[in-house]
C-alpha cells in the first residue's frame, strides 16, 4: 500500500462566498442568572452583602459591643456622625493630607526609578535605599520629621511619603525592567532615550506593575495616615479620620471606631471600583495587557 492509501477519498468542493450575510452580529443567548452574574457591581454587591451579614451575625453572637459591635450598631453610629457632619469633615481633613502625601510619593518614586533605569549605579542606589529604608517603621523617622517638618501635617506627609514611595518605586522599577527588549529597542529607534523613553515607552509598557504599586501604595498611605495622626498629635479640632478613631477608642465608643474604619473601607471600595477599575478598563484591559 502507498502512504496515501490510508486517506479517505472525497470530492473537491468549490463555493461561492457570500459577503452580504456576514455583518449580522450573533450573540449566544444567556440565561437570566448568567446575565446577572455578568454585572460586576451585582457580583461585588453580593459579596459585600455576605460580608456584612457575617459581621452582623458574628457581632451578635459575640455579644461584646465594646470590643466588636455588630454591623447594625456600627451603621447606626456611622449614620449619626455622617448626618451631623463629623465624619465628612474628618474625612476631608484626612483626604487632603493623604492626597498630598500620595502625590509626593508618586513623584519621588517616578524620579527615583527614572534615575535607576538610567544607569547601573542608579539601580544600585534604588535597590539599596529600598532594601534599607522600606522596612523601617514610622517611628524611625520621628526625630528627623520633628526637626525638618515640625508638628502637624508636614511630618504626617513625610511619613506618608515614606510608606508610599518604596512600594511604588519597587513595583515601577520591576515593571520597567520587565519591559520586553523589543519594545525598548523600538523606543530607542524613534530616537527616544532617558526621560523620553521612560515616558513614552517604559511607563505605558510597565503600566500593570505601576498600577499595582499605586494600589498597594494607596492602601499603605491610609494605614500610615491613621497611625500617624495619632503619633504626630493633631492639635485639637484639626484632626482627621485617624484622630476620630483614636478619640472614640479612648472613650470606648467602639461603634464609632468601627464607623471610622467603615469610612476607610468605603473610600477604599470607591477608589478601587471607581478610580482604579476605570483606569484599568481604559488602559491595560483595552490594550490587551491584562486578561
Amino acid at each position, binding site marked *: 500500500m502507498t502512504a496515501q492509501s490510508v*486517506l479517505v477519498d472525497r470530492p473537491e468542493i468549490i463555493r461561492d462566498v457570500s459577503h452580504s450575510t456576514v455583518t449580522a452580529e*450573533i450573540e449566544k443567548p444567556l440565561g437570566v442568572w448568567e446575565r446577572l452574574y455578568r454585572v460586576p457591581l451585582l457580583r461585588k454587591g453580593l459579596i459585600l452583602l455576605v460580608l456584612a451579614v457575617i459581621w452582623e451575625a458574628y457581632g451578635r453572637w459575640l455579644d461584646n459591643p465594646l470590643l466588636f459591635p455588630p454591623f447594625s450598631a456600627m451603621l447606626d453610629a456611622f449614620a449619626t456622625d455622617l448626618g451631623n457632619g463629623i465624619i465628612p469633615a474628618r474625612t476631608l481633613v484626612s483626604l487632603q493630607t493623604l492626597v498630598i502625601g500620595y502625590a509626593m510619593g508618586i513623584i519621588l518614586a517616578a524620579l527615583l526609578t527614572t534615575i535607576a533605569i538610567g544607569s547601573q549605579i542608579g539601580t544600585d542606589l534604588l535597590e539599596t535605599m529600598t532594601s534599607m529604608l522600606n522596612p523601617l517603621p514610622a517611628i524611625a523617622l520621628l526625630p528627623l520629621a520633628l526637626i525638618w517638618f515640625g508638628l502637624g501635617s508636614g511630618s504626617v506627609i513625610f511619613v506618608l511619603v515614606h510608606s508610599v514611595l518604596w512600594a511604588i518605586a519597587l513595583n515601577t522599577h520591576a515593571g520597567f525592567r520587565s519591559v520586553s527588549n523589543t519594545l525598548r529597542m523600538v523606543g530607542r529607534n524613534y530616537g527616544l532615550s532617558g526621560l523620553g523613553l521612560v515616558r513614552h515607552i517604559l511607563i505605558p509598557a510597565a503600566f500593570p506593575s505601576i498600577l499595582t504599586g499605586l494600589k498597594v501604595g494607596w492602601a499603605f498611605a491610609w494605614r500610615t495616615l491613621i497611625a500617624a495622626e495619632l503619633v504626630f498629635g493633631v492639635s485639637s479640632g484639626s484632626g482627621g479620620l485617624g484622630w476620630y478613631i483614636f478619640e472614640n477608642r479612648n472613650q470606648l465608643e467602639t461603634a464609632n471606631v468601627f464607623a471610622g474604619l467603615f469610612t476607610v473601607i468605603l473610600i477604599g471600595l470607591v477608589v478601587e471600583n471607581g478610580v482604579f477599575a476605570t483606569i484599568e478598563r481604559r488602559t491595560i484591559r483595552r490594550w490587551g495587557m491584562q486578561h
Partner: protein
Amino acid sequence: MNRTSPNVRAAYAGAPPDPTAAAVQASPLLEVSGVTLQYKTADHLVTATYRVDFQVFKSDRYVLLGPSGCGKSTLLKAIGGYLEPVEGAIRLNGHEVTRPGPDRMMVFQEFDQLLPWKSVRENVMFALTTSGRAKGAEAAERTDYYINKVGLAKFAHSFPHTLSGGMKQRVAIARGMAMEPDVLLMDEPYAALDALTRRRMQDELLRLWDDTKFTVLFVTHSIEEAIRVGTRILLLSPHPGQVKAELNSIPPEQLGTAAQAELEARINDMLFVH
C-alpha cells in the same frame, strides 16, 4: 527512522487495513460545521470566520490556506478548544470540543510560546511529562530525538530568550511532534525558517507521518508548501474567513511535475482573483 509509535505502525505500516478500520475512517475525525467565530473587544465585535464547514478524516494532512487576517489562527484556536464558536459546532470523534487538551497539540504562530523558565530540552520534556504522553526514560529519549531532528541538539540547554526566531519555532515544532498527538495543529510553523531548514522540516513531518499516520492541521501561507505538505487543502476567503474551496492535493510522486504547477496555478487563481 528509529522512532515510531509501535501500535500505530502495526495498524498501518504492517497489515493492510481491515474493513472495520475502513469503516471508522469513513466518519470524520474532526467535524467543523457552520462555525462562526467572533472576538469581543472593548470597542467592537470582530467576526473572524463565518459559517465555516469542513471535515478532517483520520490521517489527513489538512492545510488551511488563506490571506492574512482571514481567521486561520482563530479557527485553529477554536479547534484547540480555546475559543467557543458563537454559531455551529466543532466535533472531535463525535464529541463536541469544549476544552483544550494534549490530544490536540498546538504549535502556535507566536514566538513566545515556549516557557521562558525552561531550557529547550526542558520545554519539550515538560510537555511530555505533564500531559502524561510519556514519562521517565521514554520522555527523555523522545525529547532528544526530536530536538535532534530540528537541528537544535547544540542548544538543548539554552533558554528560549537566547534563541533566534527560527530556533524558537523549531523548538515548538519539536515539542508538537514529540507529543505525537491524535491531531497536530500547526499555525505557520515554518514561516520563520529559511528555505533549507524549512525543506528539512517538511521532509521530517512527512517522514513522521509515514510512520505514525497522525492527523495534522496545518496553516501555511505558501501555496507550494500547502501542496507539498497537504493531502487536502482548504481555501479561505479574506476577512471574515469563509470557505472558498476544498481541494485535494497531489500525491508525493507527482511533486515537481506539471500536476503540481497546475494545482499551484489553480489555487493562485482562486486566492488572487476574487
